[in-house]
C-alpha cells in the first residue's frame, strides 16, 4: 500500500520532481533521500530517485530501485511511468510501451504519459496505436494545430491518405481568417496537404490545389518542383515546359530539369539536332555553366561528337578543371568516343590542334597550363580500365608533374597508377608524397590514409588521420573517428584487418559501423516531437520514410558483406580467434597437428603482446588527458575491449552474424553477393529452406553468376549427404523448388565441366568451376591447380582476380608459390604477389 506523505514531505517530493526537470540531479537525489529517510517505502519518491539516477549513468541501480518502488506502490502511475522511461533508456521499446500503457490505465488523463507513449509508438511504427494516442491527444487539446497535424501524419503513414487529408481540412476550416504569409507552419501544412493529395494519384486535384495555395507558400523551390512534376505527369506539355524552364533559370546545373524540359517538349531521343539546339540555348543564356555543354556529348555521334568534344575539352583544359576526366570517362562505354577523345587530346600535346582552334596567340604561361592539364588528362585516360596503358599513363603524369611539380592532383594520379600496377606499397608511398605537397588539406590527408589502409598499414594510417582529429577525445584519434561517425575510415580499417585475418579488430571496426547505423536510427526519436513544433512536416515525413530504408545505404551493405565474410571465416577456422595464423598451418586437413599447435601458440603470444601494448597506450592517454570529455559533454569510458577479443571469441559466430545478414537481405535483396552470403550462412546453420530461398533470389538476379554456380553444386551435395533426413514437408518444398535451379537427375561433374567450357573466357567463372571440381573430385587437384595457373595466360585476367586465385589455393591447401611467381612475372611492378 502507498504511504501517504505529510505536507512537508509532499512539498519536498514536488521539489524532487522540479530538480529532475531542471537537471539538478545531485540536489534531486539529496532531496529524495530526505523524504525516504522518513518514508522508506514511498514508491513515488523511489521512482523519481531512480529516474534521476538513470540520468547519472546508473541505469542498472536505477532499475533495481524502480522495481522496488513498483513493489511498494503497484497502483502508482508515476512508478509505472518511470519504469517505462528506464526501459526507453535501455532501448527496450516494447517493454517501455507496456509500462506506459499500465501507467496510462491508472491515470488516463495524463498528458505526459500519453505523449511518451505516442513517441514510442511512432518510433516502433505502431501506426494504429499512434493513431489512437494522437486522437486522444487531439481531443484533450484541440486548440493546438500540431495536434491536428500529428493525427494527419499518423493516418498518412498508416496509409490512409483520405483520412489524413480530412483531418488537415477540418483544422483549416476552423480558422476564421487565413493566417499571414509569415506563418511558416501554415505554409508547410498547406504543402503537406498538397503532397498527400498527390500521393493519392489524383494529380489533377493536386495541381488545382497547388495553384490555389502555391502563391502564399514560402518554400518557393518546392512549389516549383511540385508543379513541374505534376504537369509533366499529367501530360500538360506546354505548361510543363514552362515550369522546367523556370526551374532551369533558377539552376541550370541540374540534368533532371533538362530531362523534364525535353520530355515536355516531346523531343525524341534520336533527334540529336533538336536536342543540341536546346542545350545550346542554355549555354548562351548561362555561358558559365557546365551541364548544357557537357550533356550533348552523351548523345552526339561521329563528327558531331568530335567537334563538340574538341570545343568542350579545350575549354576545360584551358581552365584547368581537375574533374574533366571524371566528367568524360562515362563516355568510354562507347569505344568510338573513347578513341576520338584520345586522338583529340593526344593531338593537343603534340601541338597540332590547340593553337589552331584558339585562333589567337597564347602566352607561354597559359599554354604551359594547357599542356600540363592535357598530360594530366592523358595520364588519367591511360589509367582508366577501359583505355588502360599504364606505362603511357606514367609517362604522361611525369610530364605533367615536370610542368607543375606542386600540383597535388597530378601526384595523386601517380599514386593511382601504382595502385593499378598492383603495387599497394608504392601507391601508398606516392600518395604520401602528394600529402606532403599540401599538409594543411584534409582531403589529400584522407586519400593518403586510405592508400595506407589498402596497403594494410593500419597503425600508420591512424597516425596520419590524427593530424585532423581531436586527439584529446577519449580513445584518442580512434575515439574521435568513432564519435564523429567516420564511416569510411572504420570500414576501410576493418576490411584491411579482414585481409590480414586479424578478425578481432576486423569485427570490432565493422561492428562499430553497424552501431553507427543503430545510432542513426535512434536519432529520429527526438524529431517525433521536435518537428511537430517546428512545423516542417514534409521533411519530417520524408525522414521517417527514409529511416525505414536506412540500411539499404551502400555504406551498410558494404560492412555487412565484410562482416559476414569475417564470421564465416571464423566459423570455418576457429583458430583465427587467436589472431592470424599462417594459411598452411591452418589448412583444414592437410597439415600435421604439431605444426598447427605451434602456429597457434605463436598467434596467441602475438595476441598477448598486442593486448599489453594497447593497455600501455591507454594508460598513456589517461595520463595525458585526465578528464577527457566527449563532444556531448558526457564523460565517456575507455573501451574495455579495444582489440575486439570479446567479439572474436564468440562461441556462436553463426548466431552473431544474423543481425548483419537480416538487415542485408531485408534492405538489399537485389544484391547477388548478399544472397550468396545468405546461402553460405544458412547452409552452415542447416537451414535448408532459407538457404534455398537465397539461391532462388540470386538465380532471379543473374542465373549465370559464377558464385551462384558453385553454390548450386554445393547445395546439391549437401542435400545428397544429409546427416539426418529433412522433415517430410521441408524436403518436399526444397526438392521441388531446387529442381527448378538444378535438376536432381543432372550429373554434377558433367554440369560443372560444361559450365567450365562454356565460360572459359571469364576468369571468375573458371575459378568457380575449378572450386566446384575440387569439391566433386578432390583427386583432380593437380589438374585444377594447373588449370588455375593457366588463367594467368588469359589477356582478360585482372590483378584482383589473380589475388582471389591465391585465396582459392589457400582453401585447397595448395602450394601458392608457382602461381604467385607466374603472376609476379606477368605484373612485374606489382607487390601483391609477394608471399611472406
Amino acid at each position, binding site marked *: 500500500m502507498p504511504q501517504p506523505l505529510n505536507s512537508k514531505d509532499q512539498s519536498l517530493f514536488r521539489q524532487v520532481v522540479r530538480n529532475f526537470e531542471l537537471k539538478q540531479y545531485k540536489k534531486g537525489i539529496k532531496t529524495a533521500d530526505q523524504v525516504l529517510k522518513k518514508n522508506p517505502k514511498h514508491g513515488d519518491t523511489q521512482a523519481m530517485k531512480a529516474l534521476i539516477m538513470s540520468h547519472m549513468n546508473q541505469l542498472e541501480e536505477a532499475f533495481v530501485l524502480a522495481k522496488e518502488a513498483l513493489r511498494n506502490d503497484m497502483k502508482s502511475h508515476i512508478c509505472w511511468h518511470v519504469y517505462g522511461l528506464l526501459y526507453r533508456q535501455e532501448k527496450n521499446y516494447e517493454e517501455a510501451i507496456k509500462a506506459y500503457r499500465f501507467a496510462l490505465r491508472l491515470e488516463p488523463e495524463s498528458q505526459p504519459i500519453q505523449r511518451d507513449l505516442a513517441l514510442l509508438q511512432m518510433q516502433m511504427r505502431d501506426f494504429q496505436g499512434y493513431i489512437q494516442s494522437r486522437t486522444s491527444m487531439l481531443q484533450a487539446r484541440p486548440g493546438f494545430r500540431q495536434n491536428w497535424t500529428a493525427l494527419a501524419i499518423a493516418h498518412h503513414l498508416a496509409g490512409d491518405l483520405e483520412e489524413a487529408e480530412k483531418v488537415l481540412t477540418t483544422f483549416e476550416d476552423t*480558422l476564421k481568417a487565413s493566417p499571414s504569409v509569415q506563418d511558416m507552419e501554415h505554409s508547410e501544412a498547406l504543402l503537406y496537404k498538397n503532397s498527400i493529395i498527390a500521393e493519392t494519384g489524383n494529380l489533377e486535384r493536386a495541381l488545382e490545389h497547388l495553384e490555389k495555395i502555391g502563391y502564399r507558400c514560402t518554400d518557393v523551390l518546392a512549389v516549383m518542383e511540385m508543379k513541374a512534376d505534376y504537369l509533366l*505527369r499529367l501530360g500538360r506539355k506546354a505548361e510543363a515546359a514552362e515550369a522546367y524552364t523556370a526551374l532551369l533559370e533558377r539552376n541550370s546545373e541540374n540534368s533532371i530539369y533538362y530531362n523534364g524540359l525535353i520530355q515536355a517538349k516531346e523531343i525524341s531521343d534520336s533527334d540529336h539536332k533538336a536536342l543540341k539546339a536546346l542545350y545550346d540555348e542554355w549555354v548562351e543564356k548561362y555561358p558559365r555553366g557546365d551541364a548544357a555543354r557537357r550533356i550533348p556529348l552523351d548523345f552526339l555521334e561521329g563528327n558531331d561528337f568530335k567537334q563538340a568534344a574538341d570545343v568542350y575539352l579545350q575549354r576545360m583544359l584551358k581552365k584547368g578543371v581537375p574533374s574533366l576526366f571524371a566528367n568524360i570517362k562515362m563516355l568510354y562505354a562507347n569505344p568510338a568516343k573513347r578513341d576520338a577523345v584520345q586522338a583529340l587530346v593526344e593531338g593537343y600535346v603534340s601541338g597540332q590542334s590547340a593553337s589552331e582552334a584558339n585562333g589567337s596567340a597564347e602566352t607561354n604561361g597559359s599554354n604551359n597550363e594547357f599542356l600540363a592539364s592535357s598530360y594530366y588528362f592523358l595520364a588519367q585516360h591511360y589509367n582508366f580500365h577501359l583505355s588502360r596503358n599504364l606505362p603511357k599513363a606514367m609517362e604522361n603524369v611525369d610530364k605533367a608533374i615536370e610542368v607543375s611539380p606542386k600540383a597535388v592532383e597530378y601526384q595523386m594520379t601517380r599514386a593511382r597508377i601504382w595502385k593499378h600496377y598492383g603495387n599497394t606499397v608504392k601507391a601508398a608511398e606516392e600518395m604520401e608524397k602528394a600529402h606532403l605537397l599540401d599538409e594543411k588539406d584534409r582531403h589529400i590527408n584522407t586519400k593518403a590514409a586510405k592508400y595506407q589502409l589498402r596497403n594494410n598499414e593500419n597503425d600508420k594510417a591512424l597516425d596520419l588521420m590524427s593530424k585532423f582529429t581531436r586527439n584529446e577525445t577519449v580513445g584518442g584519434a580512434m575515439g574521435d573517428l568513432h564519435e564523429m561517425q567516420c564511416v569510411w575510415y572504420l570500414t576501410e580499417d576493418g576490411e584491411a584487418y579482414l585481409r590480414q585475418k586479424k578478425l578481432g579488430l576486423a569485427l570490432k571496426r565493422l561492428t562499430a559501423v553497424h552501431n553507427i547505423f543503430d545510432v542513426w536510427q535512434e536519432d529520429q526519436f527526438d524529431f517525433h516531437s521536435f518537428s511537430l513544433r517546428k512545423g516542417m512536416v514534409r521533411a519530417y515525413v520524408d525522414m521517417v520514410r527514409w529511416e525505414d530504408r536506412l540500411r539499404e545505404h551502400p555504406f551498410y551493405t558494404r560492412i555487412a558483406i565484410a562482416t559476414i565474410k569475417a564470421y564465416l571465416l571464423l566459423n570455418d577456422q576457429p583458430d583465427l580467434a587467436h589472431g592470424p595464423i599462417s594459411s598452411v598451418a591452418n589448412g583444414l586437413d592437410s597439415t600435421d597437428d604439431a605444426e598447427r599447435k605451434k602456429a597457434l601458440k605463436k598467434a596467441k603470444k602475438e595476441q598477448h603482446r598486442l593486448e599489453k601494448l594497447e593497455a600501455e597506450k591507454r594508460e598513456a592517454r589517461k595520463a595525458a588527458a585526465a578528464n577527457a570529455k566527449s563532444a556531448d559533454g558526457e564523460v565517456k569510458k575507455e573501451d574495455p575491449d579495444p582489440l575486439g577479443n570479446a567479439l572474436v571469441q564468440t562461441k556462436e559466430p553463426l548466431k552473431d552474424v544474423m543481425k548483419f545478414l537480416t538487415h542485408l537481405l531485408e534492405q538489399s535483396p537485389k544484391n547477388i553477393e548478399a544472397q550468396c552470403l545468405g546461402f553460405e550462412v544458412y547452409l552452415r546453420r542447416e537451414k535448408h529452406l532459407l538457404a534455398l530461398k537465397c539461391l532462388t533470389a540470386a538465380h532471379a538476379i543473374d542465373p549465370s553468376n559464377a558464385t551462384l554456380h558453385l553454390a548450386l553444386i554445393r547445395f546439391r551435395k549437401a542435400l545428397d549427404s544429409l546427416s539426418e533426413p529433412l522433415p517430410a514437408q521441408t524436403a518436399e518444398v526444397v526438392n521441388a523448388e531446387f529442381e527448378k535451379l538444378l535438376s536432381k537427375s543432372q550429373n554434377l561433374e558433367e554440369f560443372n565441366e560444361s559450365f567450365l567450357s562454356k565460360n572459359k573466357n571469364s576468369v571468375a567463372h573458371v575459378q568457380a568451376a575449378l572450386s566446384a571440381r575440387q569439391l566433386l573430385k578432390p583427386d583432380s587437384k593437380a589438374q585444377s591447380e594447373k588449370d588455375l595457373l593457366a588463367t594467368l595466360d588469359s589477356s582478360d585476367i585482372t590483378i584482383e582476380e589473380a589475388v582471389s586465385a591465391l585465396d582459392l589455393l589457400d582453401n585447397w591447401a595448395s602450394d601458392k608459390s608457382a602461381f604467385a611467381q607466374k603472376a609476379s612475372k606477368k605484373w612485374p611492378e606489382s607487390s601483391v604477389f609477394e608471399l611472406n
Partner: protein
Amino acid sequence: MVDIVPISSYPSYIDLLPSIQTCNITNLPENYFLKYYLYHALTWPQLSFVAVVRPKNGYAKSNGIAGAGAAGNVAGEYPKVVGYVLAKMEEEPTDGMQHGHITSLSVMRTHRRLGIAERLMRMSQLAMSESHRANYVSLHVRVSNTAALRLYRDTLGFEVEKVESKYYADGEDAYAMRLKLDGQWMDWKAIEKRIAAEDKAKAGEADGDDDEGEPVGDMGKKEDGDEAEKMVKVKVGRGLGVGDLVERNESQA
C-alpha cells in the same frame, strides 16, 4: 557531370545525408554527428543543397512515392557527393535581425574550378531570402583559406565583419563575414493583399449561404484560434535533445 540538387524539396533527397557527412569529414576538420545534419534538414529544409555526380545512365525515373520525380529522381540512387552547403537560420540573433548562417560548405578538391561552391551558395542565399526574409547571411572562414575568401569576397560580395581570434579548434583565427540579402525578398505585402482578397471573396460566398456563415467544426472552436497563433512564436529546440546540439568545433574552439 555534377548536378546541384536541393536536399529536401520534391522529391526528397534526404537519403544523401550520410554521403554529405562523409564529404565533410573527408574535406574539413570541423565535423558533426549525422543528427546535426538531420537537424538542419528538418528545421530549415529549404536551405541546404548538394552536388552529386550523375550516374552513368542517369537517375531512375518516377521511382519515388506514388511516382514522384517523373523527370528523374535521385532518391535511392546514392550517387557520389562531391560538395554540399549546410545552412540554417540564426535562432536567436543577438542583433534581433533575422539572418541566415552557413554552417558548413565544402567541395572535393577533385571537383574544383567548376563553380560548384558558388552555385551552392547562391541557391542557399536565394532560399534564405525567399523563405525566411533573411536580412543577411553570415559565415566563418579560416584566415588562411585564400581560395574560400576569394569566393566569398570577390565572387559573392561578402564583407569581413570582424576577426574572431582563435575561433577554430587548432587555434586559427576566423573572419566573420556577411552579405546583405534583402534584394531577393518576396513581396509579402502583395501576397497578404491576395490572401485578404481571397478571404473576403470566401466570406462573401458564405454570406450568400444562410447556414455556413459561422466557422465550421466544433472541436477547434473554443480555445484554438488564438492558441494556434501563439504556437507560431513558441521557442523550439530547447530541452528536446536536438536543441542541445551545437556546432562542435566552432563553439568549443
